[in-house]
């Protein structure tokens, strides 16, 4: 029996060996370990001590910084991602209507997505929205008082959302590819029926594009929940002015690697997984209602 199993699988095992080791040693076992740690107090130097649900209770009921980090992250995700995707869709829609130099525009609009996650851009952002920054020079034309946008607690998060929206290029490229897939004859027959461009947009383009919209929403939300670099560099490593840019992952990092509360940080990691899974799950459930797959 075992021998048969071995004969059936030995070749595949040869190819899968690296992945198997990886998924077990770096995936499944650490997942179980962090679930276990989430029920303990652990500082890396002494053995973990079991505390039951206490980490989760503290998190939800008595840690105001945790609640703050949730709030900040939710605003970032649920304001930033829709704005970014709206921008991506609008530009893709305009570009798809046929314009001179399409490839050039596509490439230029993509550049921020390419460079956006880097430290260089985070540094630049800190400058642009700082006291001496270019943003002040621009808004002063419209009579807005100069401000240090990155260090003002009421506007710091806004600068991070702008950075996210600025990187609309990659979803735009995906939208563009989707728009090209919509059969031309749908539009032609609509024109014969006397449909204007707005009708076509809402009755053909958007419904036909819903699978791509769905894909982009899911991917961008998952990504945005895990954003770290912009908060750390632009807002500051302790969570920015009055914790106004204390992203979830930044707080997790602080708990794990500056306060060495590895148990608490593990509980936060699992909570993040639950939050992301919930939103993705809800999106998948809602997909039946609004995503249109084929005729």
């Amino acid at each position, binding site marked *: 029996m075992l021998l048969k199993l071995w004969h059936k699988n030995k070749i595949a095992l040869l190819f899968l060996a690296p992945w198997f080791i990886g998924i077990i040693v770096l*995936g499944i076992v650490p997942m179980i370990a962090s679930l276990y740690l989430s029920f303990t107090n652990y500082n890396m130097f002494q053995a973990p001590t079991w505390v039951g649900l206490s980490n989760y209770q503290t998190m939800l009921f008595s840690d105001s910084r945790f609640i703050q980090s949730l709030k900040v992250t939710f605003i970032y995700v649920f304001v930033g991602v829709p704005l970014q995707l709206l921008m991506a869709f609008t530009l893709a829609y305009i570009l798809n209507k046929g314009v001179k130099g399409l490839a050039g525009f596509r490439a230029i609009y993509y550049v921020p997505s390419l460079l956006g*996650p*880097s430290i260089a851009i985070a540094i630049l952002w800190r400058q642009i929205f700082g006291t001496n920054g270019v943003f002040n020079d621009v808004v002063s034309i419209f009579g807005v008082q100069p401000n240090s946008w990155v260090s003002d607690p009421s506007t710091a998060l806004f600068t991070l959302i702008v950075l996210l929206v600025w990187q609309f290029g990659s979803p735009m490229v995906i939208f563009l590819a989707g728009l090209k897939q919509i059969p031309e004859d749908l539009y032609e027959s609509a024109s014969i029926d006397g449909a204007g461009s707005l009708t076509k947009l809402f009755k053909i383009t958007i419904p036909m594009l819903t699978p791509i919209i769905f894909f982009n929403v899911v991917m961008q939300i998952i990504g945005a929940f895990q954003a770290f670099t912009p908060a750390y560099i632009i807002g500051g490593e302790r969570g920015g002015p009055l914790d106004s840019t204390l992203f979830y992952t930044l707080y997790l*990092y602080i708990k794990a*690697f500056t306060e060495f509360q590895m148990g608490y940080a593990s509980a936060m990691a699992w909570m993040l*997984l639950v939050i992301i899974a919930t939103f993705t799950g809800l999106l998948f459930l809602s997909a039946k209602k609004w995503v249109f797959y084929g005729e």
Partner: protein
Amino acid sequence: MKNRKRFWGITKFVLLSIGAFVMLYPLLWMLSSSFKPIHLIFSDLSLWPSEFTLEHYKVGWAGLSGYTYTTFFKNSFILVGLSILGNIVACSLAAYAFARLDFSIKKVWFAIMLGSIMLPYHVVLIPQYILFNNLGWVDTFLPLVVPKFLATDAFFIFLMVQFIRGIPKELDNAARVDGCGPIAIFAKIIFPLMTPALVTTAIFTFIWTWNDFFSQFIYLSSPKIWTVTLALRSFLDAMGESLWGAMFAMSILSIVPIFIFFIIFQRLLIEGIATTGIK
């Protein structure tokens, strides 16, 4: 009618160009500031430097903590090179097994592989850190490179599986008739034919590894093995805001490799995003 259409065409082109300029303005501003003498950076708003200096590049390149940017760039390139190699080797092996070989509870393993793509890194972060710490790997490249050789970037496995499924099975069968086993089929037929998927993998591994901050930041602490990313961040901490010029100069240099990559592989890259949905 025709005139009106032309008018709209031109208006659209102009608006899109203004949009493109606004999008690129921050980058252009940083580029131009890196060549301006310090007293002009915040006073001279024009994009073309009225006085031109290379001083910031000299000051910046000298680096910090006794190491110059030569070291930091070398480290970044080593890290990127090893990551690309690891992803190409390990992911292609796994992808071949998933796409072409038969093994026990294959569907379950495939589902686990797909699931691992969506998994937030943070759920495995702490135990992985403890593991690497116990192995004595913290403050070396190993925690960043070894996982690539164990195919942990499952996204690329998925990408390659999709690609291999598109290669006609007749090719495998013909090779089998000629006496090739699965290993020879992989080495002589599948691997060479999947070059486009391998190139996509290499491009995105390059960009992601180059831009990555979090894992490098956690695992690399000695200046000797800092990457460009880490050097920039320490620069920001050490210099505060007094050396903006040098910081801009090094920031510009830090994005040059990705930019060159982008220009060379632009078409492949954009097609890669369009067909697979990677960022």
